[in-house]
């Protein structure tokens, strides 16, 4: 359950931003957790929601985007979609794949209110 630690990291980032920007309420928080980022999105959402009460995250709409996994196939010489590491190339069936996308694990942006 490293998602709990990640949720702590998210809270830290939002709190830092709240201090810097001086907003009173977080309305929407948008995250990005790529398919190959090693994170279970449901667990991450659960962890954030468990952590939220009493913090700046309370009551916010948490949106988590999941950029699709992508890899460079050495055999095909092109970028192909994969959903997890260890998948075969959907074109040639080979395993000479180097992930190039879907590894993101970021806080994208937030909507805040000053009232």
């Amino acid at each position, binding site marked *: 359950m490293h998602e709990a630690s990640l949720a702590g*990291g998210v809270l830290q980032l939002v709190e830092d931003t709240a201090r810097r920007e001086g907003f009173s309420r977080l309305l929407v928080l948008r995250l990005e957790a790529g398919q190959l980022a090693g994170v279970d999105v449901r667990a991450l959402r659960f962890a954030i929601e468990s952590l939220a009460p009493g913090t700046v995250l309370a009551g916010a709409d948490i949106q988590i985007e999941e950029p699709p996994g992508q890899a460079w196939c050495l055999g095909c010489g092109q970028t192909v979609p994969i959903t997890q590491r*260890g998948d075969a190339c959907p074109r040639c069936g080979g395993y000479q794949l180097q992930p190039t996308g879907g590894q993101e694990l970021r806080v*994208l942006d937030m909507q805040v209110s000053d009232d």
Partner: protein
Amino acid sequence: MCVVCGCADTGTAPAQVNPANGDLHFGAGAARVSVPGMSQARAIKLETDILGANNRVAQQNRAHFQAHGVAALNLVSSPGSGKTTLLCATIEALKTRAPGLHVAVIEGDQQTSFDADRIRATGAPAVQVNTGKGCHLDAPMVAEAFASLHTHHDHAHDHDHDHDHDHDHDHDHSHGHEHAHDHGHSSHRHSHDGHAHSLLFIENVGNLVCPAVWDLGEAAKVAILSVTEGEDKPLKYPDMFAAAQLMILNKIDLLPHVKFDVARCIELARRVNPTIEILQLSATTGEGMDAWLHWLDHAVGHDHHHHPAEPSAEAALRQRVQQLEAELAQAKAALSADGPR
């Protein structure tokens, strides 16, 4: 509801009223614009890595290790793969093979100091990090543990060869990475020849999932898999084997007694990580330990004179080509994601 025209006043942006002249300002909020259908909320763009705080400390650790001539390895596996036994056997073997090499261990476990006690019994300094409920070590934990190793064990190895510890002890090592900035001026000498003078094993919490995501500042992750576990582990826990530079198949002395397909295990590991290096050994019988010790020689950069093998040069070149192609693909993907402006 509005008493003048009956319109609903929900969903419209609240305007700020200038008390002097009654002017309405719909863009006085920090967003500086009025967005129809939205209250005066503002957007804050962050695009910040959630692991950023950890990764910054990991980079400091990495710089710190380099400056101190420390080759740090992050040992990851499931519980019971034989990490600690392998470490004890390795430390014993290094005593004769590389007597000048300083070896230290950071032991990560949720509870107890059993493992650190086992390491200390070999004579090597060890510090136990208990993570409590935590399922992995993170970079700040390692920074603190490394600082504590330094303060508590520096005096124990006066046999240290060219790494001259004549620093004055006002210099406070317990500050961990914070003093990484004044290395150039501190009174103790650092490694500038690219060779490590000491080896730091970081034994992570037994867990094949979470430690994959946390960079500790190590030179490499080493995944240990024992043949009692099942050959499909690399595919079941792909993130870990993708993050590892080396996979050690441990307990091979038990192969006659278990159903474990070594070839298939290797095939699956290469599926998730085409460049992963693989060693097979038994820490208990010592079989295969030589190759591991040799790998460690590489890790500390001491093997240049006795290992001029061409095949590995070709492999390295292939790996480099693959790396560059992946980088190219990544750059192209980034370019197309940005789209035409």
